[in-house]
């Protein structure tokens, strides 16, 4: 791997994300471990979106749907495992994380296929609004379905299990999330560099040209959208386990907006953009939140300034323009 400026920054970001909880652990400050875990999970969710938005140019304002679906899968399977009742068609619940992750990704993928199949027939503003509307649909469905908490959300009484690991220990759970994040980022990099990634990027740049060489832009985009949904869904399952709570707000359009914000803050399309963005966002939330209850006002202001004046995000600011080869 060539040590470009961007790669160096990426390494520093990855190292910092690991270092902070290690230091916090040694200092007996588990709160910061939780904070770092939150950063890792949000970074994963945003990495998923980055595949659709940063690489594919698909401005999905409904990715919260996948995030929430992942969360609810974790919550529902865990609660059924606890109560012993079967979930569907005689299948029982589970509290094994890796099974939950697979189910979360599968379900997010299926819903992503359904939403994407319809939404990708539109483009531009229509696409933005229709993805927003579909996510709202999922939100209202979850809130109205009484069996799983409705508006109040769903608790996960005991954090789910992972073979060989005591997941209740904050540091352990952080490490699980950290490793998954790195795998997610690696997957993103591999997909982006592949033939599929080339087609997806080309479809963003010039969809007519892609069709003219014989590639159907719709199929490429739909595939990208589904992959993106699956990654974000996985993050949702982890988020539910982190908080031991599934909140319907995971499905809200504010969440969708937040995911986009994470990407913009860090740098759209950049490999470590989502991580940089998530770190900045959580830092703002924490630091500004400590100073004033009105921190969201300043978050809005900072976001506005970034959009107007610092379009490449943090990674763009530090590493300069992206090279495309």
């Amino acid at each position, binding site marked *: 791997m060539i040590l470009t400026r961007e790669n160096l920054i990426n390494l520093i970001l990855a190292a910092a994300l690991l270092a902070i909880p290690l230091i916090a652990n040694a200092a007996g400050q588990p709160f910061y471990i939780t904070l770092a875990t939150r950063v890792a999970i949000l970074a994963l969710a945003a990495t998923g979106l980055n595949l659709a938005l940063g690489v594919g140019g698909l401005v999905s304002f409904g990715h919260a749907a996948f995030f929430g679906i992942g969360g609810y899968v974790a919550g529902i399977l865990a609660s059924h495992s606890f109560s012993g009742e079967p979930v569907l068609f005689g299948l029982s619940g589970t509290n094994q994380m890796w099974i939950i992750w697979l189910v979360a990704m599968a379900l997010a993928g299926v819903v992503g296929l359904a939403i994407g199949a319809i939404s990708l027939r539109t483009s531009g503003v229509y696409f933005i609004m229709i993805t927003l509307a579909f996510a709202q649909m999922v939100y209202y469905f979850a809130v109205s379905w009484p069996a799983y908490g409705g508006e109040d959300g769903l608790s996960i009484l005991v954090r789910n299990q992972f073979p060989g690991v005591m997941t209740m220990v904050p540091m352990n759970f952080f490490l699980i999330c950290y490793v998954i994040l790195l795998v997610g980022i690696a997957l993103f990099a591999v997909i982006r560099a592949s033939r599929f990634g080339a087609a997806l990027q080309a479809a963003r740049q010039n969809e007519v040209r892609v069709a003219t060489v014989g590639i159907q832009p719709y199929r490429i985009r739909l595939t990208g959208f589904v992959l993106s949904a699956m990654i974000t869904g996985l993050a949702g399952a982890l988020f539910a386990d982190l908080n031991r709570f599934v909140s319907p707000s995971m499905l809200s359009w504010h969440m969708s907006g937040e995911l986009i914000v994470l990407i913009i803050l860090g740098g759209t399309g950049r490999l470590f953009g989502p991580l940089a963005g998530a770190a900045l966002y959580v830092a703002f939330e924490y630091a500004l939140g400590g100073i004033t209850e009105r921190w969201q006002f300043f978050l809005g202001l900072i976001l506005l300034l970034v959009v107007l004046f610092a379009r490449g995000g943090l990674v763009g600011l530090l590493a300069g323009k992206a090279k495309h*080869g």
Partner: protein
Amino acid sequence: MVEPILQISNLVKNFGALRATDGVTLDLRPGEIHALIGPNGAGKSTLIHQICGTLRQDSGSIRFAGQDVGGLSVAERARLGLGRTFQVSSIAPEFSALRNVMLAAQAKEGSSFRFFKPVMRDQGLIDKAMAMLERVGLTERARIPAAELSHGERRQLEIAMALALQSKAFLLDEPMAGMGPEGSKALTRFLDTLRQEAPILLVEHDMDAVFALADRISVLVYGRVIATGTVDEIRRDPTVRSAYLGDHG
């Protein structure tokens, strides 16, 4: 007679009350350069759009490479071998010239759903693309982002992409547009050799290029083909002279 590679029969396209394509019949034979000329507003672009698939015809048929392609999408027709260049060059601006052609090469192989091998380490694909760039004379500019290429270089890039597709026919939409005299001459020479690769349907305004290259010319006026013939026949045809060529013939 050899079957034409492209056969358009009685094509009709209306935009409300406007009959943009009024029963056009024309064909493209192997080995030929067939030029399509006509005054502005004659409906040349509309016709090209229907052949390529960006517009759906109202009636009539389009047969390409032995198949009825009237219902196929742009991408499907491209995969059958219809290579096209645009009046305003359509390229992937952020990608280098090389990556643009690699995209076409990858499309030809039908392998866009490979997720794991990095495309920039795929020597086979890179070599194929470089070979095409060499044919059009863009080797030196291979790694330059396409957005930074000059107007003429973008033309060459589009042709390189069409070559990479091993097109069975080329549809060139005003390739000479915006080219200076040097560029036009070079491109004319190039197109002359290109005809051996695959026949060309050439939409053009530049009469020098048309008369130098065309085996046959069709003249489109108000959506109808008013004459088809060799260069001499068209030059001498009185209807064509009055409708279009004026004193240029």
